[in-house]
C-alpha cells in the first residue's frame, strides 16, 4: 500500500487561513489534520479592560459574523448583570442576526461552495452560473444583497461591526414607517430567492417534509433549473451524499431567543437520538494546539489561552472543544436535526451527515430564516421600548451562548474589580475544525475527510467539497 502525504493550502474561496494535511492510501484519505495557521490573540487582549468594551473587540473577531459575536458578548454581560432586554429588543436582535446568517449562508453558497462545480474536471454550465464574479447567479446575488442590507441598516446602522446589540437592548428604536420600509425591502430580496434559488414560492419550499417530497419537487415545473435544483442534481450525480460522513454528534443552543427566552429552534445534543444541551459539559483541550499545555480539558470559565508557538507537538492555533469529552458538529444541519425539522431529519436518515445534507440544510435554513424575518418584523411594536437600564456589577461571571451562522458560539466572561479577568470564546468552526484532543480523537472535519476519494492530488476538488460543507471560518477559529 502506498501512502502519500499531501498538504492543501491555501483553500481557495474560504474565510481565513486553513491548511489541510491528508494521508492518501490507494486514492482515498486515510487520515487528516486541519490547522488554523494564524494567531491574533483576542482573549488575552481583553484582560483588564472594561466589560462593555469586549463587545467592540469581539465583534472584530470575524468580518462576516461580527454581529453574532457582539450578541454573544452582550449576552454574557447581560447574564453577569442579571439584566433583561425588553421584548422589542429581542425581536430586533433576531432580525439583525437572522439577516447576518442569511448573508453568510448565501455568500458561502454563491462565492465559496458552488463555484467548485465550475472547477475542472467539471463542465462549463456550472461556470456560467457560479464562477465568480461574473457567473449569472453569483453576480445577481451580489447585486440583490443591497435590499436586505437596507433592512439591516434600519436596525444596525452599520455592518460589519455594528454595536446596536447591547446588554440593555438594541440602540436604535425603529418606527412604523421604517418597519414598512423594511417589509418592502425584504419582499424585494425574497423575490430574488424565489426566482433564482428556488423558482417557487418560499411557502411551497417550506411545505416539503420528506425526501420523497423533495424528489417530487425536483420533477415539477422549472424547479430543476433553479440554483437549488442544479445543486441537488449535481451533488447527487457527484456522489456528495456519500462524502464527508462521520459518526456525527450534533450540538445546538437553539438560537434566536424570543421575549420569553424560548429559542426559534429547539436546543439539544443529537447523538443518534435527542438529549439536552448543557454548556457545563463543554471543555477545551490544547494537547495539539500552540498554547501552554495543561492536562485534559478545561471548562471555558477556567480556560487559558497563553500562546506557545514553540511547541513541536502542536499543529493548530485552534483549541479542541469537546462535549462530554467527544467531538461534536455544529451548524445549520445540527440546528435543524435538533429541531426535528422534518425535511432535514428525513434527508439525514436517507443520506447521512454528508456534504449533500450539510449544504442542503444551510440553504433550507436560509429560507426558513427569511420567512421568519417577515414574521418578526410584524411583531415589533414601535410604541414599546427597545432599551432597559441595566444594573452595575463590579464582579461576577457570565456566559453568552448563541447560534452563529456556522453554529454554536459561546463567550464566557469573568469580571473582578470592574475589569475583565478572563474571557474565553468557543466558535462554531472551533468545534467543526478542531484538531485532535487530549485523547488524540480527531475533530469532526478531520474524521469526515477519512475515506474521501482523491483521484487527482493536483485538483483536490473532492477534499474542497468536504471542507466547505462545514462552511469553515478560520478567522473565528483562531481568534
Amino acid at each position, binding site marked *: 500500500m502506498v501512502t502519500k502525504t499531501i*498538504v*492543501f*493550502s*491555501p483553500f*481557495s*474561496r*474560504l*474565510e*481565513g*487561513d486553513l*491548511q489541510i494535511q491528508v494521508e492518501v492510501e490507494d486514492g482515498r484519505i486515510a487520515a487528516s489534520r486541519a490547522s488554523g*495557521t*494564524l*494567531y*491574533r490573540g483576542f482573549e*488575552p*487582549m481583553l484582560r483588564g479592560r*472594561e466589560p462593555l*468594551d469586549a463587545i*467592540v*473587540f469581539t465583534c*472584530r*473577531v*470575524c*468580518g462576516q459574523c461580527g454581529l453574532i459575536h457582539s450578541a454573544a458578548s452582550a449576552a454574557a454581560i447581560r447574564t453577569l448583570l442579571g439584566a433583561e432586554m425588553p421584548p422589542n429588543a429581542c425581536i430586533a436582535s433576531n432580525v439583525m442576526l437572522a439577516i447576518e446568517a442569511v448573508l453568510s449562508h448565501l455568500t458561502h453558497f454563491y462565492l465559496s461552495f458552488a463555484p467548485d462545480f465550475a*472547477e475542472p474536471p467539471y463542465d462549463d454550465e456550472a461556470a456560467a452560473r457560479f464562477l465568480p*464574479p461574473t457567473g449569472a447567479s453569483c*453576480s445577481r446575488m*451580489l*447585486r440583490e*444583497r*443591497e435590499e436586505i*442590507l*437596507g433592512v*439591516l*441598516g*434600519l*436596525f*444596525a*446602522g*452599520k*455592518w*460589519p*461591526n*455594528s*454595536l*446596536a446589540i*447591547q446588554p*440593555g*437592548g*438594541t*440602540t*436604535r*428604536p425603529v418606527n412604523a414607517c421604517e418597519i414598512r420600509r423594511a417589509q418592502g425591502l425584504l419582499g424585494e430580496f425574497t423575490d430574488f430567492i424565489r426566482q433564482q434559488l428556488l423558482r417557487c414560492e418560499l411557502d411551497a419550499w417550506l411545505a416539503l417534509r420528506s425526501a420523497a417530497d423533495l424528489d417530487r419537487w425536483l420533477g415539477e415545473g422549472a424547479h430543476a433549473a433553479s440554483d437549488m435544483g442544479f445543486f441537488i442534481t449535481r451533488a447527487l450525480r457527484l456522489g456528495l451524499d456519500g462524502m464527508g460522513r462521520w459518526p456525527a454528534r450534533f450540538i445546538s443552543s437553539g438560537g434566536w431567543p424570543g421575549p420569553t427566552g424560548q429559542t426559534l429552534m429547539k436546543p439539544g445534543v443529537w447523538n443518534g437520538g435527542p438529549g439536552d444541551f448543557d454548556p457545563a459539559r463543554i471543555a477545551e483541550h490544547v494537547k495539539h494546539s500552540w498554547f501552554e499545555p495543561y492536562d485534559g480539558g478545561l471548562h471555558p470559565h477556567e480556560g487559558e489561552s497563553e500562546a506557545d*508557538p514553540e511547541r513541536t507537538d502542536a499543529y493548530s492555533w485552534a483549541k479542541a472543544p469537546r462535549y462530554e469529552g467527544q467531538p461534536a458538529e455544529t451548524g445549520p444541519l445540527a440546528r435543524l436535526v435538533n429541531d426535528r425539522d422534518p425535511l432535514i431529519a428525513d434527508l439525514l436518515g436517507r443520506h447521512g451527515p454528508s456534504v449533500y445534507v450539510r449544504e442542503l440544510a444551510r440553504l433550507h435554513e436560509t429560507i426558513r430564516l427569511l420567512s421568519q424575518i417577515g414574521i418578526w418584523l410584524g411583531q415589533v411594536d*414601535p*410604541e414599546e*421600548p427597545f432599551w432597559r*437600564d441595566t444594573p452595575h456589577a463590579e464582579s461576577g461571571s457570565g456566559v453568552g451562548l448563541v447560534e452563529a451562522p456556522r453554529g454554536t458560539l459561546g463567550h464566557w466572561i469573568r469580571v473582578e474589580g470592574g475589569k475583565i479577568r478572563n474571557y474565553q470564546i468557543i466558535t462554531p468552526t472551533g468545534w467543526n475544525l478542531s484538531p485532535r484532543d487530549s485523547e488524540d480523537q480527531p475533530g469532526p472535519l478531520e474524521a469526515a475527510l477519512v475515506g474521501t476519494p482523491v483521484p487527482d492530488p493536483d485538483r483536490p476538488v473532492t477534499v474542497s467539497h468536504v471542507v466547505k460543507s462545514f462552511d469553515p471560518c478560520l*478567522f473565528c477559529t483562531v481568534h
Partner: protein
Amino acid sequence: MEEGRNAPATWSRAVANLLWIQAVCCGGETASLLNSDHPHFEAALRALDVAVLGHAYLHEQAKGKMAEVLDACAAGTLPVNLLAVEGATYRTAPQPAPWATGKPLSDWVRAIARLADYTVAVGTCASFGGVMACARNPMGATGLQFHRSEKGGLLGVDYRSRSGLPVVNVPGCPAHPDWMIGTLWALRGDRLTEADLDRFNRPRAFYGKLAHHACPRNEYYEFKASATAYSQQGCLFENLGCKGTLCESDCNERLWLARTGSCTRGGFPCLSCTSPVFPDGFVPFFQTAKISDIPTSLPLDVPKAWYVGISGLSKLACPERLRRNAVSPKPVWPDKEERTRSGH
C-alpha cells in the same frame, strides 16, 4: 482626486492586475467590499478593469494557482499594478507562512510591495496596526507604513511604490466600500497624487470631513442636549463616548448599508475607527472623559477656547423641545398651543 471624474483618454485598456493579500485580518474589509452598491461589486470590478489575484474569494482561477501567482508577482514576471493588503502584518516571529510556501507573510508583502505600481493599505489594521496591534501585541503586528501615528511600520518611512507614492491608507474598521473602490479606481487611472493625501496618507476625498458632519443628532449637539442612555434621540457625545467630532471620515454624509445608516444613526457612538490610534486611544469606549462636566476630548474642527465658552451658553439656551426629546426614544411633540406660543 474628484469622485466621478471621467477616466482620461490615456487610461490603458490592457487589463491590470490587482493583487489582494489577506494578512492578519478578520475578513471585514472583504465583507464590506461585497456590500458595495452603486456600483455593485461586480460592476465595480468591471469599471476597475482589473484581474483580481491572490484574494481568497476573488482570485481569478484562470490566472493560475495562488502560490504560483504569488511567486510570479514577487519575481516580477507578473506585473502588480495595484497591491492591496487587508490586515496587519507581523514584524516578529512566529510568522504565518501562507499558501504552503514556507515563506513568512511579511516577506511576501515586502517583496511584492517593492515591485507594485501602487500599494494600498485596506482597513485600519493594514494602515496603522488597528485591533490586531493593540494591547501588549505579542506578535509585533503593525501597519504597512505606520505604527499607530508613527511613520515606519513594516515597509519603513522611506518606502515608495514604483509610482512614487507612499502606501495609500484606506482605514476604517471596516472601510466603507466606496473608500476602497474609489481609491483603487483613482489609482488605476493615475489620478491620485500626494497632494490628495492627508497627514496619515489617507485620501482627503474620503477622510477630509468628520463623521460628526451630517449626523442627524447635530442640533442636539449644538445645544448640548444629550442622551443619557441608548435608544434615546439626543447627542451621544457628552455621556456615551461618541468620537464623531474626532473621527475623520464622511460616514454620515456617505451612509452605509444601501445608504440607510451609520454608527450614530444606528444609535451607538462613533469610535473613530479611521484614526491611527484606534482602538486603544479611545478606551474605555462608552464613557466620555470629563473635567468638571466639560469633555476633555474637544472637537477637531473648532477652536477650543470658543468651544468651551459656547458650550456653556448653548446648554443654557437649549430649547425645551430638544431637552425633552434628547432623553426620549421617540419624538415628543409639543402640544398645539405650545407650538403657537413659541412661534412655529
